[in-house]
């Protein structure tokens, strides 16, 4: 049920493919959505050209959140980069910690203990749940369903409590560091985690009732923001955005890292490649994460070290080398490219955040012919976090 607008009043394409938009004509209007706007994910802005209530062209503007992490890291020792990286992505910071730690470990030749791999996997799945819960609230909210955000925020807070007791912090956990993790699971963690998971499952049931089995939500999202699977590779579409279009891409299974090869799961796929399908894939992926956490807590070795012996971090030098570490975060493939030159500082760090491809080029393409009121819903459905666009 793809939306078919009346194209009679649309701008003509010039020979070079650009649009012939004459603002003086009174037919078109420039509108800024963002950088302060509830329908924008994070601090980013869209410069929309609308004709009536339809978007005919959009330009994305980033830079409102630029803190220069990659450059900052070139002036910090390897251990000093550890507290920085989590800030590259606020809702799901742990991927930065993991990718950075794994890259450093590979180049420095450190083998983290097995148990730390299990705890790292646990943390990554906990972070994924949080990220999806935030998404569900945002996706529903962008279409006027405020109550879902309230419920998902509540259960997300419960998960933050678990994070707090495990890592010592709620948002920026700073727990996974080169060599392993900072500490073991606290006493009684498994049981409290199980209670939290049950509460999330219960809430997800409610969300399914009011969001996914909702005529209004379906009316507005089915068919919106369709991504042709043929665009996936040219546009670098990964993660749930791709899986919702029937492509079973999941780094956790395709190139298992940590202990994913020891967990039983299949990538969650959808079919329609529209906003509804993407939301549904994420909801089911969230349920998968709950299952994975249960598998991890049950299968984890009960004893053993969680931190490898590392050299004195105050003057830690790493031999020249380069590596790319990747993993499947809630938004797709996340990766760290790290170059070392034998000194005590990284020579270059490049962060591959999926938001970059999804929120800029892909969004600019998908947004054409979309009704203004659907722009927010479309943008949220791509699940992008601007801080990782502009590391």
């Amino acid at each position: 049920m793809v939306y078919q607008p009346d194209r009679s009043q649309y701008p003509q394409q010039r020979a070079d493919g650009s649009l012939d938009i004459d603002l003086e004509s009174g037919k078109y209007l420039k509108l800024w959505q963002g950088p302060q706007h509830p329908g924008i994910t994070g601090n980013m802005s869209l410069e929309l050209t609308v004709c009536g209530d339809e978007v005919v062209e959009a330009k994305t503007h980033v830079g409102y959140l630029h803190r220069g992490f990659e450059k900052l890291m070139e002036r910090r020792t390897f251990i000093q980069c550890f507290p920085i990286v989590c800030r590259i992505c606020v809702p799901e910071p742990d991927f930065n910690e993991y990718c950075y730690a794994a890259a450093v470990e590979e180049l420095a030749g450190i083998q983290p203990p097995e148990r730390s791999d299990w705890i790292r996997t646990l943390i990554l799945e906990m972070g994924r749940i949080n990220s999806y819960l935030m998404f569900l609230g945002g996706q529903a909210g962008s279409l006027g369903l405020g109550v879902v955000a309230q419920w998902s925020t509540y259960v997300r807070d419960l998960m933050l409590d678990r994070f707090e007791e495990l890592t010592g912090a709620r948002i920026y956990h700073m727990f996974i560091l080169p060599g392993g993790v900072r500490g073991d699971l606290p006493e009684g963690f498994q049981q409290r985690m199980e209670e939290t998971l049950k509460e999330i499952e219960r809430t997800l049931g409610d969300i399914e009732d009011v969001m996914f089995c909702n005529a209004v939500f379906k009316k507005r999202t089915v068919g919106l923001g369709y991504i042709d699977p043929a665009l996936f590779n040219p546009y670098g579409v990964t993660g749930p955005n791709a899986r919702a279009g029937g492509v079973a891409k999941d780094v956790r299974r395709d190139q298992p890292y940590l202990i994913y090869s020891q967990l039983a799961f299949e990538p969650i796929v959808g079919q329609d490649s529209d906003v509804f399908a993407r939301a549904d894939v994420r909801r089911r992926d969230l349920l998968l994460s709950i299952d994975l956490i249960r598998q991890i807590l049950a299968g984890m070795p009960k004893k053993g070290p969680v931190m490898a012996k590392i050299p004195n971090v105050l003057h830690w030098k790493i031999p020249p080398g380069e590596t790319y570490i990747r993993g499947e975060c809630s938004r797709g493939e996340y990766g760290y490219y790290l170059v070392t030159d034998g000194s005590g500082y990284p020579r270059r760090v490049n962060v591959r955040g999926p938001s970059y491809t999804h929120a800029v080029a892909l969004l600019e393409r998908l947004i054409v012919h979309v009704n203004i009121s659907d722009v927010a819903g479309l943008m949220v459905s791509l699940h992008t976090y601007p801080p990782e666009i502009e590391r």
Partner: protein
Amino acid sequence: MSIQDLLSPFTAWKNLFRDPVTIQDPFNDRPGSERYRGFHKNDVASCIGCGTCETICQNAAIDMVVGEGEPTGAGDSGLRPRIDYGRCCWCALCVDICMTGSLTMSNAYTWVERDPDAYRFTPGVDKKSWDNAPLGYQRAESHRLAPTQRVTMGEVAPERRIGSFEEIVQGYGVEQARLEADRCVSCGLCIATCPTHMSIPDYIQSVRDGDYEKGLALLYETNPFSNVCGRVCTHKCETVCAAGHEGEPVAIRWLKRHIVDQLPVEKYRRIIGDPKPPTGKRVAVIGAGPAGLTAAFDLAKMGHSVVVYEAREKPGGMFRYGIPEYRLPYDAMDIDIEIITSMGVEIRCHNRVGTDITMEQLHQEYDAVLLSIGLHLGRSTRIAGSDHKGVAKAVDLLRDIADGKSIDVPKQCVVIGGGNVAMDIARSMARLQKSTQGEIRVTVTALEDLDHFLADPEEVKECGEEGIAILDSRGPQEICLDDQGQIIGLRTWGVESIFDEQGRFAPRYNPEDEQIHPADRVIEAIGQQSDVTLLGEALTEKLAWNRGRIAVDGQGRTSEGWLWAAGDCVNGPDVVHAVADGHRVATDIDLMLQKKR
């Protein structure tokens, strides 16, 4: 789309009947979790002000400031971390790296102030409501950001080393040394404690970098006896090493030795540089030990002409004649001495001041005279029988061994004393017994209990490995003789306590606990004093004294303007202290000579 999709959303209304999930009074009902990284706490009493927290902080949120009321002392800089919460990101790396574990975090997470400057505070010094919070982040036991274990030093096995005077400690290889050097956190507490203030963190860095020439240059800036000190220094630096608080201290002494081991002696001179042009001033030094030769080295570098008078056959003083070869090989000390003479220092051995030349002559012939005669006279317990010819003093025997004289090796001997000299003579005797009679029968009796031994713990340990019996808490009472007047043993009483309430030496004996340790020879190693007879009565009377030692001012000058004194004879036994003393008097003598010019 179905009818269900129209009705289903209304199920949200059921939440009307749910209890609210919000916490009514989060300040009281919801404390931070056990590991919460809240506001900092610092146990200022165990904090040593090493500043690793400041170094590791990537936000530059920590400044080391003078902690009000915190005494500065050995191993404590007196500085305490002040944290700026305008910069802090609560990553807790400062807690993780903290060398003593004094810095922790509370689980407190609310703090309201009107004055923004209040958020820059010194935990522990500025009292806060969370200072005694039981919960909060602490570094997990296993979580260390720097290695805590020392790289094991290779040693010759006891069975093999006991047969000869071969050096026991084998020294680090390059890879081992780098690993050990890596453990240093460069806090510099050691520099303050080292009597001669060696640039320890810098030369350790040169080991990490493999830049041994730079390392040697750094060593020679403060110590011309790195071959000696790299082996037998009392390493006070290691006792204050920040790494020693929650792990083993960095093997600073072995790293120093590693640097000198890596360079051939031919390279030394080029690295150290040449002396300044001659000044025409003449200085006499009495005693070619560490203090005298250090001063001679400095003075020669400054361009003065220096003559060292040494009573014995060879230069070296206490370290040649007091320390056995297995701890300090003669070759090693000869390197240091060779460099000193290469700077133009003339050493006249076999020249005893007081007999071969008088103090008065020295006074007349030279612009300045330095007395650095060490502690070569052994003390005696003067218990009954101690004047028997079979009773010897450790220093005398050690000297004879160093001079290569033949020693009348006893079948069974008892050593009185618990210091390093007692260990030295016991182990030397054990080696001689092993090579002459194949069997070791040496007993050491000490007043102190093992917890308060004056000897280094490794000496005690190695004694045990070499089959020497150490009996602690034994007070010597009498040397027992048989009817023919031959020594048959030493009678001792048990020591009940060794120190009084003020921690001063005041042994109390238990006469009931009496033992006789069989021996045909008893060696006293209880203490030493300097032989000041060379001064002559007139000079002795002229000089000011301080409780049995020559009184000197802060620069080592005696009450006689032309005479300085340095080393063990002024400060008591310690090789690196003697080196520091040598530098101090050399500077003062040079100052005086410049004024004279």
